[in-house]
C-alpha cells in the first residue's frame, strides 16, 4: 500500500517537474510545478513528516506558485519561440550535467550516503516540537542568515520598484 | 452666487477604523429584518389605486346605458402615438337614442402603442373616454393587445353622472317645436 503510494507520488512529482521544463505555456508550467509540489508533499506524508508536507503546500503551493501565476498573468508571458542554443550554453550545460552525474555516482559507489537503520534515525520533521527545537538550536544560525538574506532581497525589491519623486523631473 | 467652501473635518481614529459605522449599519439592517415586509403578495394582494390614476383608456356608458361616445374622433386626432382608430357610424332612426345621431361603429385602441398620456380623456367633449384603474394589460399576441369596442365598454362600465345632455337637448327641441315660438 505504502509502496504503491510512493510510486504514485514519485511519478507525479517527476512527471510534473518534467512538465514544468518542457511546457511552452508559462501558466501550464506553473500549474505543473504546483502538482509537482503536491507530489512531494505526498512523499513527506508517507515519511510521517506531516508538518513539512503541510508547510510545503501552505508556503509553496499556496503562496509562491500563486505569485508566479500572478506575475505571469500580469506580464502576459505566453512563452513564444525558444531561443536557439549557443555553443557556450551547450558546453556549459554538458559540463554541469557531467559534474552532477560524476558527483552522484562517486557518492553512491563509495558508500558516502549512509543508510542508517530507519529505527534509529530521529524524525525531526514529524512532530512540531522536535521540528521547532531543531530550528531554534541546531539550525538557528542558518535560519537567521536566510531570514537576513530575504530581508535584503525585500528591501532591494522595494527600492527598485519604488518611484522616487525626484527622478520624475529628470525624465 | 456665493461660493461656500465646506471644511472637510478630518476623520477621528474610530471613524478611520470604520467600526462604529459598520456596527451602526448592522444595527439598522437588523432592525429592518424584524420589521414586517414592505411588499405585496401581488396577484392576491392588489395595490390601492389613488384617485386620478391614469390606467388603461376605456369607454363608458351613461346611467341609461347609452354609449357616451359620439365618434367625433377628437381623441383619434389628438392621440400622440396614433393608438386610436375609430370607425364612425350612424344611430338607426328607430333607436331610442336616435337624437344623438352618431356613435362609433368600431373603436380600437392599440395598447402596444398607447402611452397612457390621458390626452384622449382631456380632449373628449362627451366625457366618454376615461383612463381608469386597470394597470395590467397582458396578451400572447399583438391582436390580443388591441382593445376593440366591446372590450373597451367591458373595461369601462357605466359613468354615474346624470346630466343627460343629449336627452335634455332633445326635450328642449321637442318643447320648442310644440311651442312654435320661432
Amino acid at each position: 500500500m505504502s509502496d504503491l503510494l510512493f510510486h504514485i507520488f514519485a511519478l507525479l512529482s517527476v512527471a510534473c517537474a518534467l512538465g514544468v521544463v518542457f511546457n511552452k505555456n508559462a501558466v501550464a508550467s506553473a500549474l505543473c510545478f504546483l502538482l509537482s509540489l503536491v507530489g512531494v508533499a505526498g512523499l513527506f506524508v508517507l515519511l510521517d513528516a506531516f508538518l513539512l508536507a503541510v508547510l510545503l503546500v501552505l508556503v509553496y503551493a499556496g503562496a509562491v506558485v500563486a505569485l508566479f501565476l500572478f506575475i505571469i498573468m500580469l506580464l502576459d508571458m505566453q512563452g513564444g519561440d525558444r531561443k536557439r542554443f549557443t555553443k557556450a550554453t551547450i558546453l556549459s550545460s554538458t559540463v554541469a550535467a557531467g559534474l552532477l552525474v560524476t558527483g552522484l555516482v562517486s557518492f553512491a559507489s563509495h558508500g558516502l550516503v549512509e543508510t542508517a537503520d530507519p529505527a534509529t534515525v530521529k524524525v525531526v520533521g514529524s512532530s512540531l516540537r522536535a521540528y521547532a527545537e531543531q530550528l531554534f538550536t541546531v539550525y538557528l544560525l542558518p535560519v537567521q542568515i536566510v531570514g537576513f538574506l530575504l530581508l535584503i532581497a525585500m528591501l532591494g525589491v522595494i527600492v527598485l520598484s519604488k518611484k522616487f519623486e525626484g527622478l520624475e523631473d529628470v525624465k | 452666487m456665493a461660493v461656500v467652501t465646506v471644511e472637510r473635518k478630518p476623520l477621528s481614529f474610530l471613524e478611520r477604523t470604520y467600526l462604529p459605522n459598520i456596527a451602526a449599519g448592522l444595527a439598522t439592517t437588523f432592525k429592518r429584518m424584524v420589521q414586517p415586509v414592505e411588499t405585496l403578495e401581488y396577484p392576491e394582494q392588489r395595490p390601492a389605486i389613488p384617485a386620478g390614476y391614469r390606467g388603461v383608456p376605456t369607454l363608458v356608458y351613461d346611467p341609461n346605458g347609452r354609449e357616451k361616445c359620439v365618434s367625433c374622433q377628437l381623441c383619434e386626432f389628438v392621440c400622440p402615438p396614433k393608438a386610436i382608430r375609430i370607425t364612425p357610424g350612424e344611430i338607426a332612426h328607430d333607436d331610442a337614442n336616435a337624437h344623438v345621431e352618431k356613435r362609433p361603429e368600431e373603436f380600437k385602441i392599440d395598447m402596444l402603442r398607447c402611452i397612457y398620456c390621458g390626452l384622449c380623456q382631456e380632449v373628449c367633449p362627451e366625457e366618454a373616454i376615461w383612463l381608469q384603474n386597470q394597470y395590467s394589460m397582458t396578451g400572447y399576441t399583438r391582436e390580443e393587445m388591441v382593445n376593440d369596442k366591446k372590450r373597451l365598454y367591458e373595461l369601462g362600465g357605466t359613468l354615474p353622472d346624470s346630466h343627460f345632455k343629449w336627452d335634455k337637448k332633445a326635450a328642449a327641441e321637442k318643447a320648442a317645436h310644440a311651442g312654435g315660438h320661432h
Partner: protein
Amino acid sequence: MFDFYFELPLLLRLLLQGTVVILVLFPLAAACSMAERKISAWIQGRPGPNRTKPPLAGFLAPLGLVASIPVLGTLLQKLGIFQLAADGGKFTFKEDPVPGHVNKFYFILAPIASMIPALSTVAFVPFGAYFNAAGELVPVALAHVDVGLLAVFALGSLGVYSLILAGWASNSKYPFLGGVRASAQLISYELSMTLSVLPVFLWVNAPGGQGTLSLFEVVQSQSQPGFWGGTWYVMTMPVSAFIFLIALFAETNRQPFDMPESEADLVGGFHTEYGAFKWSLFFVAEYAHMIVGSGIFCLLFLGGWNPLPWVSLADTIHALANILPCVSTPLFMGLIAIGIFLGKVGFFIFFFMWVRWTLPRFRYDQVMTLGWKKLLPLSIANLIVYALGIAWLQTR
C-alpha cells in the same frame, strides 16, 4: 448497536465517513444560497422566494406530497426550500455553454479545482466530540492530525487557483481582472490570518507539553474547569479574533471584500463567462469555504462544542443525563456536540450574510491598504504583546 460498523475495513469506513461528510456539506453549502436570498430579502423588507411548490403529479410527486403536508409544507414553501430544489435542478439540466474564445481545458478545470479545497478542508475540522467507554473525550473528525489548523490553511490556500484559472482561462478582460485581484487579495490576507491565530497556540502549547496545532486541543483548553480554564479565547484574545474574522471575510471573498467578483465594476469577475453547473460549483465552493471558515473560528475562539463559556460539553452531558439517561450514550453525546457546533456555525453564516447585505464594497486599493498597512502590523503587534504576556504568565 453500531459494532458492525467498527468491524468494517478501515479504508471502507473512511470512505463511508468521507462520503457522508461531503453529502452533508454539499447540500448545506447549496442551502446557504437560499439562506442568502432569504436574508437579503428580509433586510430589504421583502419576503424572498416563497412561491415555488412542486406539483403532486409526475416525477416530482414525492416532493409535492411533502409540500402538501398542512403546516410543514406551507412553512417549507415560505422558506423557499422547494425553490432551492428547483434551482438545483435548473443548474444541473440547463445548457452549459462554453464560449468560443476560452482555453477549454483550464476553463473546465477551474470549477472542478474549486471543489477540491472546499470539500477537503472539512476533513481536518473536528465538528463534535463524545466520551468513549474510558471516559475520554474523542473528537468527531475525518482526520484527527496534529497539524490540524495548518492543514486547513494549506488546503484552503489552494482555493485561489480556481479563481486565477477561471479568470485566466476565460480569456476576456473582466474575468482576468477578477483573477488577478483574487490572487493578490488572498495572499495578502493569508498572512494576517496565520499571524492572528498564533497567540492561541502559544497559550495552548504550555511549556513542557507536546507541541500541537490540533484544533481539538484548542477546544479542550477552552473547556477546563475554573474561571480561566473555561473562558473562550474570544474574550481573552479579542484582537486576534477580530483580525481572524476580517481575514476570513477576505479569504472567502465575501462582502465587503468580494474583489474577485465585484459585479458593479467587473460584471461578474472571475465567473463572468461561466454559466449553469460550472457556475454553481463556484458558489457551492464559496459557501463551503464559509462553512469551514466559520467552523474554524468557532473552534479557535468560541469554544467549539461547548454550549456557553464556563459550561463545558461534559457539564452539559452530566446535567442532561440526570433528566434523560439515554443522553450519555456516545451517539447522543456526539449528536448534541455536533448540534451545538453547527448552531454556532449557523450563526456565523448568518453573520456573513448580514454583513454582506449591510456594507458596500471596498475599493481595491482600500482592500490592499487595509490588508498590508493596517491588519498586518496590527497582527504582528498583537502577536508580540501576547507572546510577551504569555511568556510572563507561564514562567511565573
